């Protein structure tokens, strides 16, 4: 029995069909996490190549799509790691230090109080607003310093534990907390500027 028949018996379609059947889904899934078209395409390609190599390991317990998504998740984390380690972005030999703290500093006065009182966002829980949230988040992440945006993505969008991120990036936990705090406040501010008006109008 050749490989193709062997795979078919376990419910796998041919690799050619993977692209047409699951390509869009895998790509969208990767886009949500990577927010970069080229990286997302790379992720899909590497996933399908890995799947091709590993198709004899497909157990048939899960659907083909679930199996591919499982591989894709690993590829996404690999790609983010690689990107974070790019020399232009981070020098991995030196712990990441962040001296530019303008955003956070500008939000508090000398006594540590908010310069502008925080304004309620309401409870934007509807799908339409989720969609808007995602669009604005993507925009706002672009405005953060790249290291902060990457760290935030790893933590919040890829859902990695802080401990693992620290090991991977060779930074201390304290450093990661400081950076995540800055990223979150930067995003909060960006959200207030870009979103608050819309939500208020929509909610009333």
């Amino acid at each position: 029995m050749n490989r193709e028949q062997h795979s078919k018996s376990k419910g796998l379609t041919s690799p050619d069909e993977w692209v047409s059947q699951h390509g869009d889904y895998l790509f969208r899934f990767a886009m949500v996490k990577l927010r970069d078209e080229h990286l997302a395409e790379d992720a899909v390609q590497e996933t399908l190549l890995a799947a091709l190599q590993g198709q004899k390991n497909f157990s048939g317990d899960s659907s083909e799509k679930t199996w591919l998504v499982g591989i894709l998740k690993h590829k996404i984390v690999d790609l983010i790691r690689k990107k974070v380690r790019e020399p232009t972005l981070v020098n991995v030999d030196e712990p990441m230090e962040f001296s530019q703290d303008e955003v956070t500093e500008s939000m508090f006065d000398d006594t540590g109080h908010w310069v502008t009182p925080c304004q309620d966002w309401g409870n934007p829980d509807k799908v339409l607003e989720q969609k808007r949230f995602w669009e604005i988040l993507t925009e706002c992440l672009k405005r953060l310093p790249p290291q902060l945006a990457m760290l935030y993505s790893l933590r919040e969008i890829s859902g990695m534990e802080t401990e693992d991120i620290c090991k991977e990036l060779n930074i201390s936990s304290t450093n990661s907390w400081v950076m995540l705090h800055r990223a979150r406040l930067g995003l909060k501010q960006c959200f207030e500027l870009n979103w608050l008006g819309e939500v208020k109008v929509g909610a009333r």
Partner: protein
Amino acid sequence: MLTCKNASQLMSQSLDRRLGIFEKAGLRFHLLICHSCQIAYRQLDFMHQLCKRIAAGSEDITSLQPGLSAEAQERILKELRRKQGEQSASGD
């Protein structure tokens, strides 16, 4: 007494690690008396929760993205076929 700045640091960290009892108590007390920080806490938590939902592969958000471009499909197919060729050539 915590300042709002310190409180915001603890709020953020509470999303990444378990706070100590004194930290927790300090933050709670601050939140009792500071309206702005109550809002800030809700905002940070809101962003965290929504990201979590997106991370879980929420279909709603995922389906909003455009699909794979025709060029990318073509390129990936080509790579797949090349690799398939290699595999059968090596008798793997």
